[in-house]
């Protein structure tokens, strides 16, 4: 489990142009970020390329990192994943995804447990809500969302993979994201209320 406080500290030192902190950040997060890129790109050599490009961007963008953001790893993931998505569009990546892998992904989502602390408690709670809300989506919405997020599939690829019209999968993805966000925000609101109640 990556320690958010440590990653935040290394990011801020990277923003101050400390190459040793940047290297430490790489050593700690590169294995996870490589896995993220590999899920999108499918091929190891392309994923390593995305990791390289992603870290070059991280070095340049570190000064824009918001130190108050509770999930520094999410920021890093977004950069590497975006780069992988760009590459996926131009590299003609072909993916094979099995349903069993999707089930495994859903089961693992939100299972990571970290150290204690109020903000971390809330983060874990949010992950639990996210998992529950994801499980509560209609099956086609959930499937298209997970395929798009974890495997970087475009609308066209989703349509081919699910054998559905393009318009249908676009609608599934949009509804899935909207429903998921509404559900998580609602659950988080209820949790906060419950914590405030005597």
């Amino acid at each position, binding site marked *: 489990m990556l320690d958010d406080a440590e990653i935040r500290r290394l990011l801020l030192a990277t923003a101050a142009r400390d190459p040793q902190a*940047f290297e430490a950040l790489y050593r700690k997060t590169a294995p996870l970020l490589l896995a993220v890129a590999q899920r999108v790109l499918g091929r190891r050599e392309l994923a390593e390329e995305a990791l390289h490009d992603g870290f070059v961007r991280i070095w340049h963008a570190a000064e824009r990192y918001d130190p108050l*953001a509770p999930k520094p790893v999410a920021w890093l993931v977004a950069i590497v994943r975006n780069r992988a998505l760009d590459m996926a569009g131009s590299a003609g990546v072909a993916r094979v995804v099995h349903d069993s892998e999707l089930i495994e992904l859903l089961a693992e989502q939100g299972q990571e447990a970290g150290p204690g602390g109020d903000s971390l408690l809330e983060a874990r709670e949010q992950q639990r809500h996210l998992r529950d809300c994801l499980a509560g989506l209609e099956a086609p919405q959930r499937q298209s969302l997970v395929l798009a997020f974890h495997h970087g599939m475009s609308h066209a690829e989703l349509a081919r993979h699910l054998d559905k019209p393009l318009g249908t999968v676009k609608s599934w993805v949009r509804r899935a994201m909207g429903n998921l966000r509404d559900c998580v925000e609602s659950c988080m609101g209820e949790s906060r209320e419950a914590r405030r109640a005597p």
Partner: protein
Amino acid sequence: MKLAARPELDLLCGEYLVGTLRGPARRRFERSLVEEPLVASRLHHWEQTMAFEYPQQFASRPSASTWRRIRQSLALQRLAPPWYQRVAVWRTLAIASSLALLLVVVLPLWRGGQRDDFRALAVMQGKTPDAAVNVALSADGARVRLSAVRPALSGPEHSFELWLIVDARSVPLPVAVLGSLDGELRLPASLAGRIRPGTQFAVSVEPPGGSQQAGPSGPVIAIGTVRG
């Protein structure tokens, strides 16, 4: 029309986050992220709300060459601190200095302390004043130190031999065969406790390796009596 003002902003944030916003639409969105703070703020909210976590078991170690390429691309080596700003250098220097201090200052002081443990015992006098040899004994009575007023080396043809003369009637007892009249030697166990006031130390010149008989076989060049 600014993206921030469009009703589908939230949907676009979601599509961007999940990765289905592609091509020119994705690039337009990224431009808006830089130019329109509200778009960036909205996406930030989405990212924090919908932060999917990747389990650590997905992790996969990158090859060593990837980090080398990142270093090269960013020319990080040029940002590496010069040697005098590296903590490791100063730490090593500090340790080395401490050891040097120990060797140069503390150890001699410690040995000096040992030197102070010697007490002057006798002065062996030769035919001339500068042929004198000082004799000192360690506090534990186990070691004798000789220091010649004028350095004296035996050369390859001869050896010096140090003797202890317990009394005038006894045969001198051999202490050590020496190449020089400066130095420290361990007193034979048989002689420990036999050095008393009135006993004498003497040095004779002997064949290489020392006298071949009981007592000196060559000339005695210096002799001195142990003080009371």
